[in-house]
C-alpha cells in the first residue's frame, strides 16, 4: 500500500508532499498510490495516547479493543496504551498478550498494553511484572490506574523493579483515605452542593512522596492526569532537582472546570475531578513550559445507565479520544500557548518516548514509520454523538462548539481515516495483515 499526500503543512509550517510505501516514508513518489489532497491541512505525527481504557476483556458493554481503536483513529491517534483495569486485570503475560494481539489484528492503531503494578489492582502484592515485560507484549508501562499504589513500600519496590528494564510506573496519585467517597473537587462548590470533597492535597501529597521515592531509588516515575495547580508546583520542584519524573494532563482538565457539576449532570463526573479555573490555567501554563510533558486522554467509556443517575451513583470518567485534539486546540493552541510543533511533541513524540514506543522520534523522515494524521485547524463543529466512534457516548463536549477536524489518519502506511470517515474494519485489518506479512 502506498499513500501520497499533496501539499500538507508540517507542524513547523513548511508545505510539503508526503510519500509512504510499505509502511514507511520514502523519498520518491510511489506509483499507483492513494492520493490525499491536504491543501490547508496540517500534518501531525500520529498521535500517541499513553492513557486509554479499552475495557476489553471484561467490560465489552462499554468498549472493545476494536471500538476503542476506531475511536482513536477518528481522533488522529496511531498508538494507544491500554490501561490495566480490565477483567481479568492485565496483571499476567496471558492477558497483556491477548490485548496486544487484538490490537494487532484490528490494525487501526498500535495497541500497547499497560501492566498492573499489583495483583488484581489490589495494592497488596506486585504482579508478574517481569513476565509481562518479557512476554510478546513487551510491556514497559505499569499502572494500577483507577487506583493509587498507596502503600509507600510497595511503590518503592515497584519503581525499583521496573527500572531494571527501563520501564516506568505510571501513578494514579490519589491518597485513598483522604478521598473516601469523594465526588467533586473539595472547595466552595462541593460545600454548597453537599458532595463529598476530593481535596487537591490528596493528589499533591502522593506526587510529593513519589518524586522523593523516585529520587531515592533512581527510577523513572510518570504521573497520570495531573489536575491541580499544587501538583504542578510539586512536579516543577522535582524536575528542578533533576528527579526523573514525567507528567500528563488530560484534555478535559485543560478546558473544563468544576462549575459544570452544578447541575449534577454526571457526564462531568471524572476522577480526578474537574477543578477550579486557577487549576486549568496552571495546567495550561505547565504544559507550555514543559513541566507537564504530555497530554493523555484518560478515555474512559461507560454505558449510558452509568451516567443517567444521581451523581453519587454515577461512574467516573469521560470518553476523550475523538475530541482530544480539538480540545487541545481550543485550550492551548488557539489561546497562543502552544504551537503545532509543541502539539506534535506533547501528543506524539514525548508520550512515545515515555512509553518506550519506537518509531515516533523522527516523524516524517524518510525511513520512519508512516504514522500521521491530517487535521483541518480552520474547521469548527458542534460536537455531537455522530462524532463518537466507540461504544459509549459519555462525552462532556456534546453540544459544545470545538475547533479542528481530523480529515485523515494513516497508521503504518495505510489509511484508517479518509475524508473524515473511518475506513471499514475489513480493509484496515487486511492492510494491517499485509503489512505484518511484509515483516
Amino acid at each position, binding site marked *: 500500500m502506498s499513500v501520497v499526500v499533496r501539499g500538507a503543512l508540517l507542524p513547523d509550517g513548511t508545505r510539503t508532499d508526503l510519500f509512504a510505501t510499505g509502511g514507511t516514508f520514502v523519498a520518491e513518489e510511489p506509483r499507483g498510490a492513494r492520493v490525499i489532497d491536504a491543501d490547508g491541512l496540517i500534518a501531525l505525527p500520529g498521535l500517541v495516547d499513553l492513557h486509554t481504557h479499552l475495557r476489553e476483556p471484561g467490560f465489552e458493554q462499554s468498549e472493545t479493543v476494536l471500538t476503542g481503536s476506531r475511536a482513536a483513529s477518528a481522533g488522529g491517534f496511531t498508538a494507544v496504551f491500554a490501561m490495566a483495569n480490565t477483567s481479568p486485570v492485565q496483571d499476567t503475560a496471558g492477558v497483556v498478550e491477548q490485548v496486544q494481539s487484538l490490537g494487532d489484528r484490528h490494525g487501526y492503531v498500535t495497541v500497547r498494553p499497560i501492566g498492573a503494578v499489583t495483583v488484581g489492582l489490589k495494592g497488596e502484592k506486585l504482579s508478574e511484572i517481569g513476565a509481562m515485560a518479557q512476554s510478546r507484549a513487551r510491556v514497559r508501562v505499569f499502572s494500577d490506574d483507577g487506583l493509587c499504589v498507596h502503600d509507600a513500600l510497595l511503590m518503592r519496590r515497584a519503581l525499583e523493579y521496573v527500572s531494571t528494564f527501563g520501564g516506568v510506573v505510571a501513578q494514579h496519585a490519589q491518597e485513598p483515605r483522604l478521598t473516601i467517597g469523594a465526588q467533586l473537587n473539595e472547595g466552595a462548590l462541593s460545600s454548597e452542593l453537599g458532595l463529598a470533597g476530593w481535596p487537591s492535597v490528596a493528589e499533591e501529597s502522593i506526587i510529593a512522596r513519589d518524586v522523593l521515592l523516585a529520587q531515592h531509588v533512581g527510577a523513572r516515575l510518570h504521573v497520570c492526569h495531573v489536575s491541580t495547580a499544587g501538583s504542578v508546583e510539586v512536579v516543577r520542584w522535582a524536575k528542578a532537582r533533576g528527579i526523573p519524573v514525567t507528567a500528563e494532563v488530560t484534555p478535559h482538565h485543560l478546558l473544563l472546570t468544576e462549575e459544570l457539576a452544578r*447541575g449534577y449532570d454526571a457526564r462531568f463526573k471524572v476522577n480526578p475531578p474537574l477543578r477550579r479555573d486557577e487549576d486549568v490555567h496552571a495546567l495550561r501554563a505547565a504544559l507550555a513550559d514543559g513541566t507537564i510533558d504530555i497530554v493523555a486522554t484518560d478515555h474512559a467509556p461507560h454505558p449510558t*445507565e452509568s451516567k443517567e443517575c444521581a451523581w453519587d*451513583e454515577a461512574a467516573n470518567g469521560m470518553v476523550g479520544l475523538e475530541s482530544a485534539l480539538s480540545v487541545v486546540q481550543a485550550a492551548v493552541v488557539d489561546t497562543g500557548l502552544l504551537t503545532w510543533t509543541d502539539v506534535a511533541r506533547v501528543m506524539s513524540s514525548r508520550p512515545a518516548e515515555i512509553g518506550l514506543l519506537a518509531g515516533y522520534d523522527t516523524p516524517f523522515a524518510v525511513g520512519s514509520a508512516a504514522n500521521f494524521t491530517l487535521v483541518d485547524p480552520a474547521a469548527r463543529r458542534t460536537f455531537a454523538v455522530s462524532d463518537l466512534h466507540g461504544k459509549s457516548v459519555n462525552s462532556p463536549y456534546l453540544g459544545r462548539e470545538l475547533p479542528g477536524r481530523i480529515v485523515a489518519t494513516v497508521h503504518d502506511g495505510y489509511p484508517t481515516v479518509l475524508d473524515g470517515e473511518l475506513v471499514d474494519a475489513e480493509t484496515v485489518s487486511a492492510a494491517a495483515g499485509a503489512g505484518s506479512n511484509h515483516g
Partner: protein
Amino acid sequence: MRHLLSTADLSRDEAIALLDIAEDMADVANREVKKLPTLRGRTVVNLFFEDSTRTRVSFEVAAKRLSADVINFSAKGSSVSKGESLKDTAQTLAAMGADAVVIRHGASGAPRVLADSGWIDAGIVNAGDGTHEHPTQALLDAFTMRRRLHGAASRGKGLDGVRVTIIGDILHSRVARSNVWLLSTLGASVSLVAPATLLPVDTTAWPVTVSYDLDAALGLSPDVVMMLRIQAERMNAAFFPSAREYSRQWGLDDDRVARLPADTMVMHPGPMNRGLEISAGAADSARSTVLEQVANGVSIRMAVLYHLLAGSES
C-alpha cells in the same frame, strides 16, 4: 414555581408567599373537618429511597388534607431495592400519571437530576437529598420562627434582623444548607457553630458567620438556637474524639440553656439524640419549638403542594 429543589431558588417574595399560604393551611388544621378539596383527582407520589417515616408521614398528611391521592413508593421491598434505577422508577411513575413526586434520596442532587431528566413531567419536591438540601424543613423552621415572633400578625412578614445560630454537624446537614439560604433571604442573620471537622471546607461565599466556640456564640444572646442531629456514624470517622467530648463542647445542656435569654427559641429538626446534642431539659422546655415544628411541617408541605399543583392555575 414548577419544582421545589433548593431554597436558594426562592426569592424573598416567593418564600413569604409560601409561608403565608402555610398560615392559611394551618387554619384548616383547626377546623372540625381538616380537609380541602383543592387537589382532588391529583396524584402525589412519595418516592422515598431512604427511610424517613417522619417526613413521609408529614407529606402524606399534607397531601391527604388537600384531597390528593397519595401513593407511597418506598425503596425498601420494592423494585428499587432490586436494582431498578432512578430513571426506570421515574418513568414508571410518569406512566402512572403522577402529578407531583416528593423525593427523598441519599444522593445529593437526585431531585435535580429527576427534574432535569425529561423522564417525568411531574412537579418535583425535594424531601431531603443526601447532604445537600431539605427545603421544606427550612420553610417549616422559618414558619415556626415567624409564628413565635409575630403570632397571628405573621402574614407578609420576613425574618428581618432575627439572629439564628445553627449548631452541630453542618458538613453533613441538608437542614443547615436549606436554612442558610432561606433564612438569609428572609432577612435573618445566620451564624454557624461547629467543630472545624464538621464544617464544610469553604463557606466564604455563604451569608453566614462561622465560629467554633458554643459558649461564646450563646453569650451573644441569639434569638434562635437550632441544634442539629449528630449521627452515630460520625463518631467512628474521626470527626470528633468521643460523644462525651462533643456533648461537653457543642451540646445544648441545661446550664447553657439557663444562660440564654427567656425568649430565645430552641429548635431541632428531629429526631433528637437526647443527652448528646441536646439535653432533655432543653428539648422539653417552654422555649423548645420541637413539637410546633412537627405540626407546622404539615402546613408547610400543604402550602408547597398547593403552590406546585394548584398555584399556577388559580
